[in-house]
């Protein structure tokens, strides 16, 4: 059971300029620029609290930046950015009372995937034997695999992944590297916040190093 590889239209570009964000009274970053084109992977690094999750949620459109702009260039005119994006966060978007299959069927309906891709996607993530158990009996790593199967159920060109490797075993971490490589090859782009190295060619944005430069800007 292999999934047909999607082909994304080339020429999609994410451009963010002068982003600034604050949580509470603390400046996370200011004057942050980044650009990423189709086929690119950007790894966000930095210590806990340096703003990786906030930046990912900004890019997903869940938060509004205090300053700066986020543009998606080369998008079909009628499309909305939200329809291009897959977001995978700490809270995985799985309801515990439902089975992985039911959760993914819902995700497919919501995000524009095909129900026929659910079983192969779970198989790719090595979670097919779990398909009909309620999510609340799954381990943290198993849940992560089920949640990541969503990326394959509904092909979307932009992956915003917040700590996708947490709780995964070594085989699982290698698998995410392979998925990202395939996504790149298909013309997709990805922003991945993680402490661990990922097995894919990626540019690195270290929010911690930037944060050091900003440490004088703490507000009272």
């Amino acid at each position, binding site marked *: 059971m292999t999934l047909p590889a999607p082909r994304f239209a080339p020429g999609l570009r994410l451009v963010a300029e002068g982003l600034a964000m604050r949580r509470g009274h603390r400046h996370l970053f200011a004057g942050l620029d980044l650009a990423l084109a189709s086929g690119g992977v950007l790894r966000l690094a930095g210590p806990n609290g340096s703003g990786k999750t906030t930046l990912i949620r900004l890019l997903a459109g869940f*938060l509004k930046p205090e300053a700066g702009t986020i543009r998606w260039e080369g998008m079909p005119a009628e499309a909305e950015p939200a329809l291009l994006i897959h977001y995978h966060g700490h809270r995985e978007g799985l*309801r515990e*009372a439902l089975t992985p299959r039911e959760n993914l069927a819902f995700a497919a309906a919501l995000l524009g995937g095909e129900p026929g891709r659910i079983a192969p996607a779970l198989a790719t993530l090595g979670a097919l034997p779990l398909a009909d158990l309620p999510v609340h009996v799954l381990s943290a790593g198993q849940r992560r695999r089920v949640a990541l199967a969503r990326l394959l159920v509904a092909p979307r060109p932009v992956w915003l992944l917040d700590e996708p490797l947490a709780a995964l075993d070594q085989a699982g971490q290698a698998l995410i590297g392979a998925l990202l490589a395939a996504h790149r090859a298909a013309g997709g782009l990805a922003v991945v916040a993680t402490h661990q190295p990922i097995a894919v060619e990626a540019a690195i944005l270290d929010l911690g190093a930037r944060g050091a430069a900003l440490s004088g800007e703490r507000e009272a």
Partner: protein
Amino acid sequence: MTTLRAIMIRELRLARRIGAGAGLGLVFFLILIALVPFAVGPDQKLIGRIAPAILWIAALLATLLGLDRLLQADEDEGVTDQLLLAGTPLPLILLVKALAHWLATGLPLAIAAPMLGLMLAIEPAAMLPLTLSLLVGTPTLTLIGLIGAALTVSLRRGGLLLAILVLPLTIPTLIFGVTIVREAAAGRAVATPLMLLGGVTLLMVVIGPVAAAAALRLARN
């Protein structure tokens, strides 16, 4: 359309699995009504007179059950983020969620109400209007509750605040609903209060999901 159907199926399935299904609200409704004769004493006339009010207040409280989990559970497990990335407009998704909640709470109450009205010595002529008033009025309770649920979604334990927010806003519905039953029991026409009740419900079908969606988006920042 298939998206909305999938959301509906999921909501009903969840309601059944986590025990917020039709049965629970109905049993709660039944218990509230069974308590009244004990509290009021064996005065059938008095009970018959206050029965419309009791049935409607019981419906109000039964609707509140499960409202706090309506959006909170999705928020806690990260599903709200996925809803924001959907191709379907958020207000439409929320309308379907509200409909599912009503199917599991309001509709069974409306159907069971005549049986329970019997326990409260309600006039036979008022049985059908009672069901009608609950059928038309309880969707409003759910929709007002939807707005309250969206406003309290970022609070960890917003259940009590939700009730405090929602209950005052249900007063117009309560007035029209009780009026319908009382007028029918007295043998008068109920068209006017019924239309007013329907008007409030239609208004809330439009306002409720849009307001709830705005509140939900606001809670992100």
